[in-house]
């Protein structure tokens, strides 16, 4: 029960704690207190946990030693019992802050705290003005000192916050890369939303910070002028020093904010990008699930240019292709002898793609491509006709419309296929602009 003593001494005046003893205890037990600090950063500790921690640090100490040590810390108010949980302890808040300062650990404050300080500075500027108007030099000096101290508080706080922001960024960067980025950067995102964003508003040209600084500055500068005119109530140096500190505070706030943005913005963007990628993938998959892979647009699909040499065509097409090449040596043609009348038809040069597409284009519109081909090449081999069918129906200059399946009789075979009606795609191109105006609502 002895550990609960401070709780039950609630109404009694607290005994005076000698600062030297506290400092000495901290110095003497630093090796034990420092690791405990980290634990207390996470929360409170029960008496058993406390004893356990100390025992781990001081293996050779007896339970009595530990009890004695903890008793000293409690008596010196280094450890205080948690309200309503007398068997749990925490570091005295003041000591905790002091230790955090010594350990260069910084907890990010609230933007609202700075705003509150600023409002207070504005009020102090009002009091300074009143004291001067009343020609009360003591009050004026006191208010100026208060103002100076408050500005120092803000500076201290800004410095602390900046260090805390660095720590936030470092923690995000060095944490396990295997855990999701959203978790890894949760602190960054929260810090941005809760500190940086309000700070941006605060330090804005029309924000509370600038307004407060301007107000205090105006009062101080006016005071300097008035003192010169009406006589000195306080030393000008004091006013000038306070003014300089105000300006320092303003610069410091802007630098802190800039630093915070530089540190956290890239991380925030990375986290946002990560979220966007994950969301985008999920959205795309849901579209594909509903509409199939072909929901991916034909127009934006992967494309490739293919060299001619890979064309699959009939023997004549290959020949025609080679025929068109500049260095092609044609098969030796048998020229008819002048004195002999020619027997049979002359060998015909193979048709080229250009020739066929031109002919086809001139014959547009074609109600049935296959019928047209059979008319054009009644003696043509089936593979050659099918090649032309395939080639012409894919020609970009033509627009096709699928016909019903039917049989076609070539010179050699009967073929069953779904032919196309062809029209010129150029005509469509000229009418296209009117089509593009169609509302998506009419898509179906």
């Amino acid at each position, binding site marked *: 029960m002895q550990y609960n003593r401070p709780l039950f001494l609630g109404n009694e005046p607290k005994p005076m704690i000698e600062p030297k003893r506290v400092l000495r205890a901290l110095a003497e037990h630093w090796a034990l207190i420092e690791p405990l600090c980290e634990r207390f950063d996470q929360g409170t500790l029960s008496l058993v946990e406390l004893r356990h921690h100390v025992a781990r640090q001081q293996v050779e100490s007896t339970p009595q030693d530990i009890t004695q040590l903890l008793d000293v810390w409690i008596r010196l108010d280094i450890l205080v019992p948690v309200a309503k949980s007398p068997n749990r302890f925490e570091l005295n808040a003041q000591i905790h802050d002091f230790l955090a300062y010594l350990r260069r650990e910084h907890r990010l404050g609230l933007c609202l705290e700075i705003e509150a300080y600023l409002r207070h500075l504005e009020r102090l500027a009002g009091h300074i003005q009143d004291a001067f108007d009343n020609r009360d030099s003591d009050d004026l000096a006191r208010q100026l000192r208060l103002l100076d101290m408050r500005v120092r508080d803000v500076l201290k706080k800004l410095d602390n916050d900046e260090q805390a922001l660095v720590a936030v960024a470092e923690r995000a960067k060095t944490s396990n890369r295997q*855990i999701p980025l959203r978790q890894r950067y949760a602190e960054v995102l929260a810090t941005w939303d809760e500190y940086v964003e309000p700070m941006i508003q605060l330090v804005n040209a029309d924000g509370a910070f600038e307004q407060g600084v301007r107000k205090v500055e105006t009062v101080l500068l006016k005071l300097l002028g008035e003192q010169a005119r009406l006589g000195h109530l306080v030393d000008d140096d004091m006013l000038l020093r306070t003014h300089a500190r105000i300006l320092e505070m303003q610069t410091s706030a802007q630098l802190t904010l800039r630093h915070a943005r530089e540190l956290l913005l890239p991380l925030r963007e990375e986290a946002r990008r990560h979220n966007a990628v994950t969301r985008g993938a999920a*959205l795309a998959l849901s*579209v594909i699930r509903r509409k199939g892979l072909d929901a991916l647009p034909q127009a934006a699909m992967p*494309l490739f240019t293919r060299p001619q040499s890979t064309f699959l065509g009939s023997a004549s097409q290959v020949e025609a292709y080679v025929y068109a090449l500049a260095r092609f040596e044609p098969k030796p043609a048998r020229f008819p002898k002048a004195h002999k009348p020619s027997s049979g038809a002359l060998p015909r040069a193979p048709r080229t793609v250009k020739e066929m597409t031109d002919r086809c284009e001139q014959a547009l519109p074609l109600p049935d491509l296959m019928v047209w081909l059979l008319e054009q090449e009644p003696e043509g081999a089936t593979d050659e006709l*099918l090649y032309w069918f*395939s080639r012409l129906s*894919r020609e970009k200059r033509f627009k096709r419309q699928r016909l019903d399946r039917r049989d076609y009789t070539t010179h050699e075979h009967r073929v069953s296929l779904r032919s196309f009606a062809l029209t010129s795609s150029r005509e469509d191109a000229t009418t296209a602009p009117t089509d593009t105006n169609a509302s998506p609502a009419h*898509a179906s």
Partner: protein
Amino acid sequence: MHLDLSELSQLAPIFRELFKGFHVSRRDPELYAQLSNFQDQYRTLFKALGFELVCDTRGFYYFVPDMAAAQVNKTAQRLSLFTFILVEHLADQGRDPMAVLDGGSLGRDELPSLLDKYRDLFLQAEVQTVDELEEKILRRMTQLGFAHEEGGIYRFLPPMHRFLDVCLAVQQDRDLAATLHSDLPLPTPTLVEEESPEALNRTDDPLDLSPFEGEESEEQALARAIREEQQEIDA
């Protein structure tokens, strides 16, 4: 611009690779160094030849094919689908998709479970077995310079950003949620595709009477028209 061909010492291999649809990144240090050192020269030369060399600041180079002479293929569809699946799968597992796809790796042993989980989607890409997944997707990724395989580990390379960009484009498209209920298509990166027997069969077999892939439905034509109009407005 004056072009000194003697400076372009890697012209032949660079052209060969880019023409095949390969993405050159730091994984191929010689080609990459040449391209970075003589970026403008290469770009000018290729432009004169009718090829557009894209220099992505994230560290890779590739050809964008001429739209007019290009043919449709399924590769980018499959690779996009695989990327979407992988991002979702990794996020579901609590892993960081960006860390994996931006320079991270995926073990071959992870493929069976991936295939099992997304069998319905892979089916749409005509992938039914792990072998097909490796053959049709991961091997194509390595051939195109998106990934590198070594000892059963696939390491993803910077060109994967092209697919991550698709995810971003999808997410940033405010209307896309609406497309779940409409026919507007998703964007897909344009890849240069090397020849494959599959592509040849599909496009040029005279006896292939299956519907032509280039054929647009009315809805697709409308979507395309809207997209083109949007591009004009943006331009």
